């Protein structure tokens, strides 16, 4: 892949440059998960039935499609093999820039087509951009930008879980062409279609259009006074299309079901700055700035849902042929923000720096008394290398000490939360499915409304106060550059959808729930190791961050979070503990045969998970849960090396993350169930002969889904993020073929991964909730990409 950076127009008074980049690549699944094959699956199911004293049905007779005359499974399907593919990626970029008198221009077109590694998935991107800068008068400059991006995605999300869960004994289709499904085997849970059927017959598409226009005018009233105004308008249009085909179990009853969700977002923004700059006596540099900013946003959305199609051909493209539809929904809302700010900069001989700023931010999202908030900040810096006592020391080229402290605000949460709104829909008992609060009388719908949220008129801006102390050093003529920072960021009035007891009629409320703190160190080291014909430089970044909760609610009461799978809480906010720490039971192992009597007092049998009775009351209740993991790493960073020799270049980018845990909830459904396929680890389950196992007995009747330490894994890893090789053809050669430059490259992304984590990839995080980070549940797998690039400049 080739990254495109904004190119300024050419330097000559009348010149132009044309650059063309092309790259292509091949993507593959980086890591396959170990799922049971047909023989292993049948074995597991039989063990389950024996352990539960259930008869093993005569499948030879009952399911002749799946079992042969000897009672052996006829098929052995590897669903990962069937659903993943080698995918091609392509990326093209054309850049034309130049200068004409006092005008500079740049035109850019891009096209990207990435096939996804899942069948029928992929992303296409179309980009166009125009920049035009002019000096209209000696005192007036303008800069105008337009850009447009179109993105079309085919997602296939629904296939991910099916891929792990569909049993291996069913085929893609039967000899007569009928599609198979999990339920063809009577022991399986209902309904699931196999992933290939989903990928072929279930549309899951997202299209996004994004357009931006921006004009900036810069007026120089005098050498010291300047006024800059910027006006921008941007529109974003997003449309999600889904079609569930008639061959899918989920589509049979509906006879094909199409849904379209559309959302339109329009923003305008006006920013204005007045700047005063002056240097007195060649020592004192002063800069003063006053500014004001307005932003308005309007969003509207609608959704339609139609069912009953004579043919899957139509998809979502002609809803008029449907025979039934649900009530369409629509929505409209908006918000405005308004800010005033001032900034004062002073430096003495570029040795001592002082900055002070003040912002007043206002947002329509807050109630009458809390719309505006004040955010001051200040910073000082001392460039020691400019001092006489260091200036003479040649090996120090630059040395700067920095200190800053400042506040920023956040208002990113839903709109109108301080009002008591009435809505026609609430969250339904089936997670993710809305429930219309309308009544039905005589087979006809009668509309209803209920209060949709608890009003919170005390909502106010979230405020973060950050202190930073840093040092920048350059040694030996910049051959070694080091940046080191210590910081502490304290966030007060944290905005969050805090859970409410359901007897209030509501599940949560947007509120300022408390204070948290992030603090740590960051180091950046750049070294130029060899700078001859052979060139080698190294960049090393590492960050150590710690976070914790400082205060919660009124009495520092715990806030439990989760409910993503099986509706159980997985994370907790607790004072003095890391943000969203993993919460659950401690698994001490599996009850052994020798412990039969003790297990019985807990209502358990040998082979059941042995959970720690934390409060010692002789029974396992939710009070025995405790903090069992932290989703945030102790340290993370990258180690990048660049080598070049006579046009050849080698780039090696290693990424590391250390000390974080992952709450692998996928394990909960992929090891402790039967009827769906599971990981081969299940074969190592506890048996009277395998007492040491940490995996519950197959068919154990102990409650499943009491999340415990068994699901917590070490998430540390080292990844070869990018390794690439390039060659720049020599000038002499390119000149002959009338090119300014010609470059070829080849690269390998996600080249290798070293980790103990058992899932697809340790860079996990399935849920958007900021406090359930590091929780994985059927994550999209990571790919490995080999790519080749060509770069031509005319």
């Amino acid at each position, binding site marked *: 892949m080739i990254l495109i950076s904004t190119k300024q127009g050419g330097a000559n008074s009348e010149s132009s440059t044309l650059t063309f980049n092309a790259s292509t690549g091949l993507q593959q699944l980086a890591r396959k998960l170990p799922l049971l094959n047909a023989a292993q699956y049948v074995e597991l199911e039989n063990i389950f039935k024996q352990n*539960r004293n259930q008869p093993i049905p005569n499948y030879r007779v009952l*399911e002749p499609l799946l079992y042969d005359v000897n009672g052996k499974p006829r098929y052995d399907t590897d669903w990962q093999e069937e659903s993943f593919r080698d995918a091609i990626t392509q990326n093209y970029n054309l850049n034309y820039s130049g200068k004409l008198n006092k005008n500079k221009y740049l035109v850019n077109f891009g096209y990207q087509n990435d096939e996804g590694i899942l069948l029928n998935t992929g992303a296409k991107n179309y980009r166009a951009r125009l920049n035009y800068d002019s000096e209209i008068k000696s005192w007036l400059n303008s800069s105008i930008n337009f850009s447009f991006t179109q993105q079309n995605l085919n997602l296939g999300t629904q296939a991910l879980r099916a891929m792990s869960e569909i049993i291996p004994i069913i085929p893609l289709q039967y000899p007569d062409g009928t599609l198979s499904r999990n339920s063809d085997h009577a022991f399986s849970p209902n309904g699931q279609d196999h992933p290939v059927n989903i990928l072929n017959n279930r549309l899951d598409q997202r299209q996004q259009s994004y357009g931006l226009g921006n004009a900036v005018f810069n007026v120089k009233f005098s050498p010291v006074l300047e006024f800059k105004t910027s006006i921008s308008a941007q529109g974003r249009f997003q449309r999600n299309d889904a079609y569930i085909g008639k061959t899918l179990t989920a589509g049979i009853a509906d006879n094909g079901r199409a849904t379209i969700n559309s959302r339109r977002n329009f923003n305008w923004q006006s920013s204005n700055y007045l700047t005063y700059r002056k240097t007195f006596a060649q020592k004192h540099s002063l800069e003063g700035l006053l500014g004001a900013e307005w932003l308005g946003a309007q969003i509207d959305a609608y959704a339609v849902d139609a069912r009953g199609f004579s043919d899957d051909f139509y998809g979502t493209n002609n809803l008029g042929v449907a025979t039934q539809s649900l009530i369409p929904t629509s929505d*409209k809302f908006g918000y405005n923000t308004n800010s005033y700010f001032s900034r004062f900069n002073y430096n003495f001989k570029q040795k001592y720096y002082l900055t002070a700023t003040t912002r007043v931010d206002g947002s329509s999202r807050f109630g009458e008394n809390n719309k505006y908030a004040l955010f001051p900040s200040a910073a000082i810096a001392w460039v020691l290398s400019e001092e006489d006592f260091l200036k003479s020391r040649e090996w120090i080229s630059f040395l700067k000490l920095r200190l800053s402290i400042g506040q920023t605000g956040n208002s990113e949460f839903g709109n109108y939360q301080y*009002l008591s709104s009435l809505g026609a829909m609430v969250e339904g008992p089936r997670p993710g499915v809305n429930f219309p609060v309308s*009544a039905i009388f005589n087979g*006809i*719908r009668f*509309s209803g409304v209920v209060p949709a949220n608890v009003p919170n008129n005390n909502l106010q801006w979230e405020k973060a106060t950050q202190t930073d102390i840093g040092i920048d050093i350059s040694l030996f003529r910049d051959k070694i550059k080091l940046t080191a920072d210590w910081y502490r960021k304290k966030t007060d009035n944290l905005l969050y959808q805090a859970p409410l*007891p359901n007897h209030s009629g509501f599940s949560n409320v947007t509120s300022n729930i408390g204070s948290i703190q992030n603090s740590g160190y960051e180091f950046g080291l750049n070294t130029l190791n060899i700078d001859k014909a052979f060139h080698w430089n190294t960049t090393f970044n590492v960050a150590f961050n710690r976070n914790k909760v400082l205060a919660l609610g009124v009495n520092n009461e715990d806030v439990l979070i989760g409910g993503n799978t099986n509706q159980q809480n997985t994370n907790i906010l607790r004072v003095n503990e890391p943000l969203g720490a993993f919460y659950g039971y401690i698994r001490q192992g599996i009850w052994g045969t020798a412990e039969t009597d003790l297990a019985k007092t807990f209502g358990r049998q040998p082979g059941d998970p042995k959970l720690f009775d934390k409060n010692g009351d002789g029974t396992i209740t939710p009070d025995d849960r405790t903090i069992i993991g932290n989703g945030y790493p102790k340290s993370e960073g990258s180690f990048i090396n660049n080598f070049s020799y006579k046009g050849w270049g080698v780039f090696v980018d290693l990424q590391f993350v250390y000390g974080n845990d992952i709450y692998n909830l996928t394990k909960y459904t992929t090891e402790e169930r039967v009827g769906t396929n599971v990981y081969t680890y299940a074969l190592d389950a506890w048996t009277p002969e395998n007492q040491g196992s940490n995996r519950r007995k197959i068919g154990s009747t102990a409650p499943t889904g009491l999340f415990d330490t068994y699901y917590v894994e070490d998430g540390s890893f080292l990844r070869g993020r990018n390794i690439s090789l390039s060659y720049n053809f020599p000038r002499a050669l390119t000149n002959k073929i009338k090119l300014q430059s010609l470059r070829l490259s080849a690269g390998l992304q996600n080249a290798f991964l070293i980790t103990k984590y058992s899932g697809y990839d340790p860079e996990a995080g399935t849920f958007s909730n900021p406090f359930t980070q590091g929780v994985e549940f059927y994550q999209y797998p990571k790919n490995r990409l080999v790519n080749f690039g060509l770069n031509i400049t005319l």
Partner: protein
Amino acid sequence: MKKVILFILFTLTLSSCDKFLEAEPENFFTTENYYTKPEHAESALNAVYAFTRSFYIPSGSTSQAAYLMLELPTGQARRVSAPINNQVFTDLTYDAQSYYALVWWKYAYKGIAAANVVLKYVPGITMNEQRKKQILGEARFLRAWYYFNLVRIFGDVVKITEPTPDATNVYFGRSSLKSIYEEIIVPDLTAAELSGLPETDQTGRVSTLAIKSLLAKVYLTMAGFPLNQNDKYSLAKQKAGEVISSGKYSLFATYEQLRNPSNDNKGENIFMVQFASGIEDFILNKFMVPRNVAITVDRGAQNGDSLRPDDAFYASFSSQDLRKKDNQFFYTSYLEYKSTRILTFADGPRIFKFFDENAEKNNAGRSGKAFPLIRYADVLLTYAEAQTKADGAPNALSYTSINLVKQRAQLSSISNQNATQFIDEVLIERNKELCFENQTWFDMVRTRKVYDVKANRMADFIGYTFPYSNSTFTVKLTDKNLFFPVPSSEIDANPLLKPNNAGY
């Protein structure tokens, strides 16, 4: 320079008018500016009705509904292995984290919250006074129904009678089950009785006789465990008697009529949860069709076999009992979809009670059938039980009542029984007649008796071992099963709910 400053001042003043940050929502009303018109009163009431559906619709991708929580632990449903939410209730290994309990808790309170909104805001609306009074009566009935479910499922629960004003005034502990009955359920129903609603209703709304029927059930429950208020038997007898003597209801002649969606809200159906095909589909019919037998369009692939009768329960119906015959309450074979071939189920009977023939044949199983909450057979048996308990011996009307139910099942009538025999007859009849209608579990906990399907007699709740137990795998009712656990996520959000019910 002056011009510049003027220009900037102009820009600032132009936009900094106070209105800029005023939010004016265009897509919703707020509690403050709504509740002004008669239509608003109706829309607030409609929401109270809406939540009656929430327990009978899917609560997971397939095969899951809160309804099952009250069927699977009766021992009368067949053991299933998946999904996990169903398995724990058939194995009685459910705990405070089991999802269905949360659905009952959460959506009962959503219904109660909607009713509290009606009771607070509708009185202030200028409208037809008679209709206003009815609306308040309907809301009171529904609020009582939601609370009645809560106390029967959880015991002590939180008492909420006002809309939640803000996020701080929500942390309360649980009130005693007794006070919920005496301060909410009974007063709400007695007030609703006088709200001028019509005696019957065929559209799916609350009627005066539905209120009396529910009141009879409430009194009968109060007379049983754990309150044991014996004086309530005569009140139950009185209310059920009023429904019977009104002459407005009668049993359908056939079970086909009982099943037929065109008879919803009519005949013996006193109050039901409403559904409409293509609008809000009934789903439980799909839960009960067999899987991998081609009698339905999708071979039951989505939701089939989520609920099946246990073999021993099916066997407990005598061979004369019409309900046991195919295509009555159960079936063991059926016509292949779009064909005339008869397919026999290789592995046992399924429930036919909620089968919607027309929907299966012509509408891919999408049914609009309403689900019965109170039907006349229940009222007849309620009368028979309450009267016998109140008076010490069954009277003629009690015999007539139980015999009407028996006769329809082609069973012989009973007569000349002592009170104990008669009560057992009534309870067994309730088990058979009202099976899979979310009644059996509540009968079990209020009487602390279970229908022992193998011995064909009533047995004690505590210690009853389910018929599908064996020497290595035992499923047995104990004290802890008398109430379901308060969901742990509720206790997480509000520790004042502690302690949880005994055993959790």
